[in-house]
């Protein structure tokens, strides 16, 4: 491989795999598409390994529009983990729902490519293109179960609101270009130093934040989340909840810390308010949900609030712990959605709380797995969720945001109520009506095993990964 392309190796691997899957899709067998999943999985895992090998290397490509640094590598790894786990979960899931198509795997790979591009983008135009690549793929994926009204609704809603957000984003880019004459992040940073109070630049920056706010689903741009999470196929929901969120944070953090560093006091204040609103609203509304996918949707909003606490705290510890939390959150959330995806009642997916009544007595292993993922979302030691929250809140305490942390921990206590309610159903209630059964899926179980390993590895031995995360944010903070 020519040296100039080395920094792009993970991206190229995913892109090449996507192209390969498109070709293979045209060849027989026409009925079964399971082999495409395997190819896609191999590609994503190869990209993950390539990213790991590139740790510590710095490089740029395409005239500085793409960058490779430890920050990009760390997020590439998070995204590849998310994509790989989602692919594992998808295999049998699609077949069971009669929706096994080659397009699914192609779109997952393209969405993954878009996410990784966001992590490696060093130019607003590239961020925009990556965002579109990711979003368009996800819009289609959300509507994959075209026979289901909810799936179509999810796709439509996601698309319309996403298009709005993109509009804001592009407008923001235009204003910033107008103010600074460039779209390259580092040159904007250089220009922004002299234009700190320039209204054009500030408005442009604000519009960018609207676009990002939509992608990471922070209040007040969260309205799409519950419907999309509920309606989309569960494997796609898992990808939206983890991969696209990680990608959104990747670009957001890069823009905030390396480009708009001079405005840090302003946006810190803004994000502080957003963080409080996001976690409080997410947690409070989650209490009222009886559909697990909707509940996890609101809880994912709340978790964005926690991560914003780390952004507000700033510094290597604060931003590093956001990256760490993204990894933790990926394992935990994919795991939780994975259990939901494996369970069905009658011919339906088991998404209502009632479907989980008495699950522990009949399927103790799956119930235990879901309980552990939920405990990690609560933040109970010794799961990864505790380590993640500990670092996030620790960073905020160090930066002096005690009140913010108090609000955040009280939010965690509120959240315990609705997460544990699922445990109550599984362990403390008697089953009624049709039994809930798990689908016999080896790949699905493998995905859950990997996610559980992540939840405990990061919970018991978090320090090495946190050190990596802190090293990863160093390029942003210098």
């Amino acid at each position, binding site marked *: 491989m020519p040296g100039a392309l080395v920094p792009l190796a993970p991206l190229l691997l995913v892109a090449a795999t996507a192209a390969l899957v498109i070709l293979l899709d045209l060849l027989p067998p026409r009925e079964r598409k399971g082999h495409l999943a395997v190819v896609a999985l191999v590609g994503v895992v190869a990209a993950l390994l390539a990213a790991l090998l590139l740790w510590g290397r710095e490089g740029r490509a395409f005239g500085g529009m793409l960058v490779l640094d430890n920050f990009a590598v760390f997020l590439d790894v998070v995204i590849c983990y998310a994509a790989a786990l989602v692919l594992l979960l998808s295999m049998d899931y699609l077949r069971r729902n009669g929706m096994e198509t080659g397009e699914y795997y192609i779109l997952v790979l393209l969405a993954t490519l878009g996410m990784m591009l966001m992590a490696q983008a060093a130019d607003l135009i590239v961020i925009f293109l990556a965002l579109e690549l990711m979003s368009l793929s996800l819009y289609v994926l959300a509507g994959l179960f075209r026979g289901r009204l909810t799936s179509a609704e999810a796709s439509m809603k996601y698309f319309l609101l996403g298009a709005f957000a993109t509009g804001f984003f592009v407008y923001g880019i235009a204003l910033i270009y107008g103010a600074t004459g460039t779209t390259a992040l580092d040159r904007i940073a250089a220009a922004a130093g002299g234009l700190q109070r320039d209204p054009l630049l500030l408005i442009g920056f604000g519009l960018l934040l609207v676009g990002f706010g939509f992608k990471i689903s922070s209040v007040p741009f969260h309205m799409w989340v519950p419907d999309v999470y509920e309606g989309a196929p569960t494997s796609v929901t898992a990808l939206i909840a983890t991969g696209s969120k990680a990608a959104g944070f990747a670009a957001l953090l890069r823009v905030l810390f390396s480009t708009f560093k001079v405005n840090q006091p302003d946006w810190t204040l803004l994000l502080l308010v957003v963080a409080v609103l996001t976690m409080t609203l997410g947690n409070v509304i989650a209490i009222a949900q009886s559909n697990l996918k909707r509940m996890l949707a609101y809880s994912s909003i709340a978790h964005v609030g926690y991560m914003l606490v780390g952004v507000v705290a700033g510094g290597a510890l604060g931003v590093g712990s956001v990256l760490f939390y993204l990894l933790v959150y990926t394992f935990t959330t994919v795991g939780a959605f994975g259990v939901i995806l494996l369970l069905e009642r009658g011919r339906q997916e088991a998404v209502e709380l009632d479907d989980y009544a008495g699950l*522990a*007595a009949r399927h*103790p292993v799956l119930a235990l797995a879901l309980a552990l993922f939920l*405990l990690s979302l609560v933040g*109970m*030691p*010794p799961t990864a969720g*505790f380590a993640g929250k*500990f670092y996030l*809140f*620790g960073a905020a*305490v*160090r930066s002096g945001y*005690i009140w913010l*942390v*108090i609000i955040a*921990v*009280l939010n*965690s*206590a509120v959240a*315990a*109520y609705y997460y*544990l*309610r699922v445990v*109550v159903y599984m*362990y*403390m*209630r008697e089953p009624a009506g049709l039994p809930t059964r798990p689908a016999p899926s080896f790949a699905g179980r493998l995905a859950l095993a990997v996610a559980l390993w992540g939840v405990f590895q990061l919970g018991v031995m*978090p*320090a090495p990964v*946190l*050190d990596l995360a802190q090293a990863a944010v160093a390029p942003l903070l210098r």
Partner: protein
Amino acid sequence: MREPILSAVTFLPVLGAVVIALLPRGRAALVRWFAFLVAVATFAVSLLLYAGFDAASADYQFPERLPWMPSFGISYHLGIDGISLLLVLLTTFLSPLALLSSWRAVQDRVKEFSITMLLLETGMLGVFVSLDLFLFYIFWEAMLIPMYLIIGVWGGPARIYAAIKFILYTLTGSVLMLVAILALYFQHGAATGTYTFDLPVLAGYVVPGGSQVWLFLAFAVAFAIKVPLFPFHTWLPDAHVEAPTAGSVILAGVLLKMGTYGFLRFCLPLFPQASLAFVPWIFLLSLVGIVYGAWVSMVQPDLKKLVAYSSVSHLGFVVLGLFTLTPQGIVGGIIQMVNHGLSTGALFLMVGILYERRHTRLIADFGGLWKTIPAFSALFMIVSLSSLGLPGLNGFVGEFLILVGAFAWASGPSAAPAAYLVPVLATSGIVFAAVYLLWMYQRVCFGEITSEANRGLADLTGREWAVLLPVLLFIVWIGVYPRPFTGMTEASVQALITQVQSKVAAAPGGR
């Protein structure tokens, strides 16, 4: 002393739980025996701690220290002193008995129950042996889940409500403590340059006045909920009434002690000035708890609720003793923690025995039991007397020392004349305890047999004797000759008082 005995004691139950998880389903008897033997083995190993403990030294003994997250100054640091030793032993002593007591009561999901109980034991032991705030917090939180499951899965009719209430109350308190732990960590780090969660190191640091109050309050609320101190006690009656007998025994016997232990281990040495400043308030809450708990106990129609409210009263005594900051008061408080674990644990066991036979706990459903089950009634009498503090039994020793400590505090230089009200009002709690316990006993065991269902009751079985006799042994032993127990704590208590006083004196603007 290089063998990691503390780790062995702490993690032996987890090991047992893992093995039980691998045992075949449906072999309930095997699971029960194995879990019981694991708990007995844990107790046996913990006796090594007693044997090897140097009572003359106030240092942390059997230390173990391994770096865990060095970049954060977090280490796996274990050690016990005279304060924690007795609580560790109490935990390992009560756990096998609780398991044994549930052989008949728990018929459903025996395997899961045994695993949960053993995990709970590890969590509790971990809280008492941790000398690193991070490690302590991990155990403190991790222990909530097994207790939550024990109440929620194997509890009574309103178990789900009780379980959720229990976990939300305690979780709210403990997350605030987490913020305080982090704040302390960074404050200490910024002031001294050493970032560490190590308790002995942090205890050497004098937290500046303003923030000390806030940190103290955050810790104190977490502990007050756990104790529970009035007005944070409302989760307790629900949890106790709904929990299965084994859960109630552990809850009353050990879990509540974590709150009082926390005051002693963390609040006093870390925030001495704030602790002293809050003494009047803590005394007020303790006294309200003592009197209120006793009064409410009197009118309970349900035996378990009566014992639950009596815990509020008794734990009020313990907190009172600890905050007198006199040697007698603190030693008395520690002994009373053990006593309460034994007496209340035994009361719950005996109520559980009655419940297994009659499936009711209402006092009105009993009467004249002395005529049908004399052995039970006799033991019940001893346990009730121990709980109300009859001289010669264990409760008296603790309460007496606490009251001596309270009088010593009231006659101290810093106390106002009205301070004598504190021991006087506390003493009234003992009188009320006699009222509610003896009246309860009278209605349950004396008089005519009012209900035909009580005529055919079977007296204690061999297993029940095996559960109760060890407790009775210690009830009498501590009552007659408390020296082997008090002697273990005195050096550590003295060191704690000295540390508090020197830190108060060293502080700028200290008294």
